[in-house]
């Protein structure tokens, strides 16, 4: 059984893309969430091994969600997904305990390497 990953992104397109990458590489997608609040709730419900978290999302953004999740589970592994030009926010996320980050556009190899590393 592959490790379970929770995908968080507000764009369906991005979620599909990640889901595709993950499932082709032996990971199981625990669930998908489209904003921070949903991510927090689904984290509790599915207890995934890892979360991929988009930074910019409506309502509760990725960093807030990261903090919420880490508060509830100090061992939570969260990889941030960001785009170029978000240095500051990525740093904030790292300070808040993100294990790694991947930069859009997603490169399959890079995504998988980051996830492999985070889970090893």
């Amino acid at each position, binding site marked *: 059984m592959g490790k379970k990953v929770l995908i968080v992104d507000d764009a369906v397109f991005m979620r599909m893309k990640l889901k595709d990458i993950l499932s082709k590489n032996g990971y199981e997608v625990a669930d998908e969430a489209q904003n921070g609040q949903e991510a927090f709730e689904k984290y509790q419900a599915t207890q995934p091994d890892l979360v991929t978290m988009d930074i910019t999302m409506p309502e509760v953004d990725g960093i807030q969600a990261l903090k919420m999740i880490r508060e509830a589970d100090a061992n939570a592994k969260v990889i941030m997904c960001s785009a170029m*030009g978000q240095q500051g926010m990525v*740093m904030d996320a*790292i300070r808040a305990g993100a294990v790694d980050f991947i930069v859009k556009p997603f490169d399959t190899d*890079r995504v998988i*390497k980051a996830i492999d590393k985070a889970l090893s």
Partner: protein
Amino acid sequence: MDDNSVYRSLFFEESDDNLQQLNDNVLELESEPDNMDLVNEIFRAAHTLKGMAATMGYDVMTKLTHKMENLFDFFKSGKLKVNSDYISLIFRCLDRLSQLVEDLRDEKELSQDQISDLLEELEKVEESVNGSDQAAKTPEEEQDTGALTNVFEHLEEADLDVIHQAITGDYKAYSIAIRIDKESLLKGPRVFLIMEKLEQEGDVLHTEPSVDILEDGDFDTDFRLVYLTRDDLDMVKHNVESNSEIDEIIVEPFDEEKQQAGEKQQAEAPKTVEKQKAQQKQTPVKAAAKAKPKTTKNNKTSAAHQHANARNQSIRVDLTRLDRFLNLVSELVVYRNQLDDASMRNNADAMRDALEQVSRLTSELQDLVLKIRMQQVSVVFSRFPRMVRDLAKELNKEMELVVEGEETELDKTVVSELSEPLIHLLRNSSDHGIEAPDIREKEGKDRKGTIKLSAYQEGNRVIITLEDDGKGLDPAVIKESAESKGINTEGMSDDEIKKLIFHPGFSTAKEITNISGRGVGLDAVQAKISELGGSLEMKSELHVGTKFIIKLPLTLSIIQALMVRIGNESFAVPLDVVERVVMLKENEIVKTTNQEVYRFQEGLIPIIRTDRLLQIEPDPNKKKFAIIVKIDQKYYGILADELIGQQEIVIKKIDPMLQKINKYQGATIFGNGSIALILDVNAICNEKKGTE
């Protein structure tokens, strides 16, 4: 490369959404320039758009979005104040982006030239904000090539002291060199993450380049650091290796002698290094330029594969509707089984009961499918506020668009065809209707003109009205203009004169502007609306305003029809064009020199002998009926042998070959399984008009 074709349709759908949202929000931003929530919202949408474009590998689109996003970033950080020049620039970017998306949809290749003008402008804005700051920074970026080294260039005495002290305790010192993946993006945070992890187990004493530069990402790929920790070599290595996007690392116990030897070497060779650097800087540029056409070619071939599903239209459906659909279908299955059962047992009563349920379900399903095809008119309307804003700027007028009933639903086909005629009418109202602010003031009107666009449902039609409070139509002006164009207006009432604006080639604009009056008149609008099975009316009062009323059928796929028989064949005539049906005798048809006419009301109307037209053997014994239809304000009489009745019919497409003969709109299937063709009354009558 990943096969992105699966995501194409999704990409387009979400891009459209995001662009629309951007348009709306930016428009709002213009009136509320200090609304930071709005800026954030805009930023987010632009960001999503960029991410998607980049993932699809649409570089040109990514680039433009990225540059545009920078502008939003300046708004966010307060470095730029929102003003209408910037807003206009953004709108132009959004328009260009829409264009790019359209091109992509059509499988066209994008080129950098399509956006270079906008990029230039955006860069100018950026430069004005950043000053020369940015320019000075870039050339400084160093290119790291050759072997990774952990020899430090400038380690100070003080640092060495700290190292000595640490080593005498139970700490160990390591010199670490890390080369980050060449392709790694966001190097700053990457370094930050590596450091953060190291700091958890020890102290980073010294880095080259400095921490600030590293965290800003202003370096090429290599950096070095001195690290003090209690951990042993393997643990440190493991710590560094746990990071992703690292190309190569060197972790060694700190060696002062090696360090000093290296320092000397470095001091001797700076010149050659410099030269090398300069050369290297040029080559990658060339390489990149060469590589580009290659990649675009690749895109082209893969694009060709995707061509089949390129124009694959999709529609978003409310989930509750889809659920209801499923419910109905499952119910249908239950009753089908009951029917099966009843027919096995030959139980007529049970069969009748089940059938009753099935027929109820079928009509519910029919309703539902129609509803699923429905789309809110907001899909079209939402673009207009932006358009009116642009028009107001262009025309130096003040006007506002008020939209009502955006949630009114229409069949998707109708909705998507609606934008063209509406844009035309809106342009007309803005250009000819609304007066210049000064004139408005003189007439005691508000300086700001109002155009009201509303939609609502009435029975099985949807009414869309477009109303302006402008100058209205002046019959005298129209009359003059019509006469100068050689249209005879004698004996026409004011209302009839006003209707002349629907006359082909009529334009009241004194000078041709690029907003309206490009020769495409209101007649085109009217033609489009009737093509959609609708009608267009106009009411206008001088100095008060003009109102256009568009009436549209809810759906195009199910219509009310009059079923008739000609010879032994059945035909359907769409009921919405039928004025009335009269019975007539052969001797009431009068032959003129070139055609046959019939006296109807006060005038003579052309008669169309369908039997001859469609080459059908007529039934001489039957009474004749004339179906009086009204096309383009003119009456025609279509002859039929027998009336079957009025019926709701489902339009089925017919073979394109058959469509080409221009007499049939489609076909429909009767309850008994036989087929009837639907007469294309419009085409038939227009053909008749042509032969007159």
